[in-house]
């Protein structure tokens, strides 16, 4: 019974972090129809910026927002300078669907080597700002520590803020309209190119938060070859696809589902099956509902 609760808690915590990554994939997909594999590199780079802040000011609490802002700026820069050019020159034919994917994979490698150049390939450490020792009930230790509580709360807060932006503000309306129908949006006067850049910036911020939280949740080690970031990318992407790739809520649901399933497999089946399980879950969802769990219902076509 207690193990069940703990497995659940571990799954929720991991799922929250995946959901930030999944959200950042969804935001980029919605704004430019690009699956951004460079997102893991962006998250990592942002986390290194966070590490620099911690190094100088000794505060994770300053480092977290700085990492998010850095993530936003770098992502916006990539969209502005790199993706726009790319999409302009490869807007037709088979290359149009392949080029962006290859480009983001290339970017991922580039960002990793830039990190290696500046910070070296050895681990640097980001210490968890809060205790990572679980709360105790009687003699039992919960898989919920002050740090994990903060992570879950921070993710909930960020998801609420994003939802508010998307549903209640003019910027959100512009973001949604541009994603669904760029041409109509342009004709309505929306600066779709600018809105796309903003979409990338929001994605970069979410990625930066994911990286900072992920690192503090684990053993704190950070390196360009970090397995944790590769997993974050893989699981964030899978969660986004499970959720339909187009929906923020879908991304969150997909990520929590994935986090929970993986936690239960890890506890009750075995660690060696975790990675396979993620892909099996992806395949099952795609077979049953090809559009993802939260696919847009086709409306009436009058």
């Amino acid at each position: 019974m207690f193990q069940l609760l703990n497995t659940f808690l571990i799954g929720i915590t991991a799922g929250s972090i995946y959901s930030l990554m999944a959200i950042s994939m969804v935001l980029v997909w919605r704004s430019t129809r690009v699956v951004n594999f460079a997102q893991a590199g962006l998250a990592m780079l942002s986390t290194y910026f966070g590490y620099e802040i911690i190094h100088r000011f000794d505060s994770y609490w300053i480092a977290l927002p700085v990492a998010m802002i850095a993530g936003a700026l770098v992502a916006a820069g990539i969209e502005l300078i790199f993706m726009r050019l790319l999409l302009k020159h490869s807007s037709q034919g088979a290359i149009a669907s392949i080029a962006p994917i290859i480009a983001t994979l290339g970017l991922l490698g580039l960002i990793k080597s830039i990190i290696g150049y500046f910070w070296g390939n050895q681990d640097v450490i980001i210490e968890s700002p809060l205790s990572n020792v679980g709360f105790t009930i009687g003699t039992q230790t919960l898989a919920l520590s002050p740090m994990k509580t903060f992570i879950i709360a921070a993710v909930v807060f960020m998801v609420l803020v994003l939802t508010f932006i998307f549903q209640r503000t003019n910027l959100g309306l512009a973001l949604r309209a541009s994603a669904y129908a760029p041409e109509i949006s342009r004709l309505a006067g929306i600066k779709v190119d600018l809105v796309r850049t903003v979409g990338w910036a929001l994605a970069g911020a979410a990625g930066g938060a994911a990286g900072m939280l992920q690192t503090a949740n684990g053993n704190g080690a950070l390196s360009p070859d970090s397995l944790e970031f590769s997993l974050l990318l893989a699981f964030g992407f899978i969660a986004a696809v499970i959720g339909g790739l187009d929906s923020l809520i879908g991304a969150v649901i997909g990520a929590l589902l994935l986090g929970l399933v993986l936690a239960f497999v890890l506890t009750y089946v075995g660690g060696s099956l975790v990675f396979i399980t993620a892909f099996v879950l992806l395949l099952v969802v795609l077979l049953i509902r090809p559009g993802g769990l939260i696919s847009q219902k086709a409306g009436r076509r009058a």
Partner: protein
Amino acid sequence: MSLFIENLSVHHGAIHAVNNVSFKVEKGQLAALIGANGAGKTTLLRTLSGLNKATHGKAHWNETNLLHEKPEQLVRHGVSHVSEGKSVIPELTVKENLEIGALWRRNKKEMVVSLNEVVELFPRLGERLEQRADTLSGGERQMLALGRSLMSKPQLLLLDEPSLGLAPLVVEQIFQSIKDLTSSMGITVLLVEQNAMGALKIADIGIVLNLGSIAVTGDASALIADPQVRAAYLGY
């Protein structure tokens, strides 16, 4: 104050879709642009709103050069294009579809004023503001597309086949609304239509396109009376 087009040519690759077209529409006039399928009507409108690039020629709305700006900039100069085929965003609500037309004005108060004006013009939209646009009927969608365009306070309206796929009674309503817009608000309209007779009846002038070139232009009433135009484009 006028829409002024001179020697305008537009290509789609090797296809010469619009060929040396020249005409003028005075402020407050309603011009009907008619012609067979593939005549180049849509291409011409898309070029005037900045979606397509011209090969050569001139196109001005007042002082604004229509060939050098993006669509989102032209909206800021009073040019609004409602594209072919009930151009609404199905995933958004009716209200949101209307609001996107006024976002660029960055003025919440004016947005509300415009919204009320549009709802007054099309009460059926008012009853359905919170509904998703894909729940609307074809006629309501066309009203919504027109409504969104009005939200941006246009001076020049470019309308592409607003009657497409609508029942005759609804077509009449839409045409009546368009006519009212020009007479009451002084909006200049370039109306592309397959329903040539209906369009010419409400129009001041008519422009007939044939394979990308202008075949005939003149007063709408004169075109309706012209036996050749009747035979070739009005079907009787």
